[in-house]
């Protein structure tokens, strides 16, 4: 009995997503589920702990911004908006800051197996997405208790989440790719992420800052997501991203930055992926 003839196939070396989509997806899903299970089932208070961080941050900021800056009176449903924004921005922050060192952290896998490199940061984002889902449950409870909504536009929220996640993925690809070459990317990113936190309308709605600053802040590709999310989820009377930016034309800049970030992310990760094992 002769074994079936196997066809010789080229071995092309490591890549961002080698070995087929199916395999990459399986790996991605397994890693993210394992991570998620570990943080939620590993300890008795797993879920509570994962909520503790955004909730504590929320409590501190709420006191500061309502007491010191009086935002509570100037902005409609400010506490809910603050919690919602913190959870939403938390997804971006958690993903990107974990993604920076993710390839280095998985050294043993990268050095020993033909592992599709992109799966590692993507799994980080997916795990953060699971966390976001869990945190949003609390946000919804909080919204209903505070008497905000439900609005029909809540159903639109996933449409917003898709491009927001895409942007997060793009940044989460850029950072580990740079980090494999320049090891202080992680340190710089903690500073940059903090700056971004304040430059994005998380703590404040755009309309309360001066008009000039408003236009500048609206250039931030993250800003339109927060403006739109507020309008759809918290306050239907809030300005649209176009209004906040001072005209639809101004939205072309964050849109351009969005596309640029995505293209750069895919390009730089693909370029670095084959050499990542050597740089470790």
């Amino acid at each position, binding site marked *: 009995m002769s074994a079936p003839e196997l066809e010789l196939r*080229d071995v092309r070396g490591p890549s961002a997503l080698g070995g087929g989509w199916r395999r990459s997806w399986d*790996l991605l899903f*397994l890693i993210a589920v394992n991570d998620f299970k570990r943080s939620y089932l590993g300890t008795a208070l797993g879920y509570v702990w994962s909520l503790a961080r955004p909730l504590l941050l929320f409590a501190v900021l709420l006191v500061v911004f309502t007491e010191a800056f009086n935002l509570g009176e100037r902005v409609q449903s400010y506490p809910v908006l603050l919690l919602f924004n913190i959870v939403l921005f938390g997804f971006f922050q958690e993903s990107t800051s974990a993604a920076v060192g993710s390839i280095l952290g998985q050294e*043993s*896998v990268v*050095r020993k197996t033909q592992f599709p490199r992109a799966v590692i940061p993507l799994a980080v984002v997916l795990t953060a997405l699971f966390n976001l889902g869990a945190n949003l449950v609390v946000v919804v409870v909080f919204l209903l208790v505070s008497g905000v909504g439900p609005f029909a536009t809540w159903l639109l929220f996933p449409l917003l989440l898709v491009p927001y996640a895409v942007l997060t993925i793009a940044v989460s690809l850029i950072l580990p790719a740079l980090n494999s070459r*320049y090891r202080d990317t992680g340190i710089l990113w903690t500073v940059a992420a903090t700056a971004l936190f304040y430059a994005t309308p998380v703590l404040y709605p755009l309309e309360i800052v001066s008009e000039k600053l408003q236009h500048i802040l609206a250039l931030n590709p993250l800003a339109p997501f927060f403006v739109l999310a507020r309008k759809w989820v918290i306050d239907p009377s809030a300005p649209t991203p176009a209004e906040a930016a001072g005209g639809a034309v101004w939205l072309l800049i964050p849109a351009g930055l969005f596309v640029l970030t995505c293209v750069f992310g895919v390009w730089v990760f693909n370029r670095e992926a084959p050499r990542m*094992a050597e740089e470790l």
Partner: protein
Amino acid sequence: MIFTSAMPVAAHERPVVIEVRDVAKTFRVPEHRVDSLKERAVHPFRRTTFREQHVLQGVSFDVRRGEFFGIVGRNGSGKSTLLKIMASIYRADRGRIRMAGRLAPFIELGVGFNMEMTSRENVVLNGVMMGLGRREAQRRLDAVLDFAELAEFSDLKLKNYSSGMLVRLAFAVMVEADADIMLVDEVLAVGDASFAQKCLDVFHEKRRAGRTLVLVTHDMASVEELCDRAMLIHDGEVLHCGAPADTALRYFRVNFDAPADPAAPDPTGGVMDVNVDVVDAWLEDAQGERVRNVEQQTPIRLQIALRARRDLDAPVIGIHVVDALGSTVFGFNRRLTLGPGEEDRVPEGGRFRVGGTIENPLVPGRYFVHCYVARSRQQGDYALQRLRLLDFVVFGIDKGPGAITVDADVQAVLESGDPVRHREAS
């Protein structure tokens, strides 16, 4: 035509499953590594200079289905890099590699585990990584844990495993992946004896199943036991590819046949006794070049230069060859060879030389040359001190029993068997 296991296809007729053509890999090692943005910002115009390290330079070979192929070489010869390129961990700079079938790598004693996960999670993840579906990987879990004898520890995080347990688990994953091609780097060197035996058993079983194995190792014994063919890599190039015994011999040659390093400390430095100073002592090859090691069955060419510290009247020089355990394997004594009219004495400060060619029956191993000089045979003087002259390695592949190999004209023949009864019995 129908092939059965009892009638295997001749090796050279089987299809090629690994085809490596002209593969080259160069690592650029920065002289001054810029690995931070800060350094880049502080010295923006400093060109990083690189030392190019040619790890592989044009390696080509084929492996056929069912073949066990060994890759041997010294540390840093490029053999592990080659395996990593084959396993798609590194990318080759040049050349082409083609393979047929599913691949299971076992590299740096692991298959890429995440220490924070349990073995259960790792095993499933690895199965998927090697190309199994998620369900399939789940199904293989028990087999893997059984093989690794770790079923009771399946929910323990790997960081709590001992190194032996990790290797066992990794090897089990590789074995149970049931891949067509296994790429294995140095597995037999670790673990206890029973694990090494288990590995060997598995390899024999895989051979019967017609799997292909590429084994990278230092251990010539396992190459000779397991492999059908072996390739020697030296400085990134293929020095030899052929029968394992041949390759093993050449491996020993590149390891031990290096000329004596002139910068190395003089092995005889400071050796003296009351009778003589050892000026120099060395081994040389047939061309007169100094060597540190000698191939099995190749004559030992020994040279010793001595200087008398006092008048030596009819001196006797004894040479002993001692093995690693300290037993003298053989030895001989020499007196001065005198020309006509020469006196059998060496005045104080006089130099003399002991040298020549010695038959080499030694089995591979490490040996020492000791020397004894007695001042005066007439006065019944004995050598006062043993001089350790040098040590050397005899390399080769014919270990054999005992301390020396000898030519033996001995045959085994059938004496008075009854051929008729013998035939009936079979």
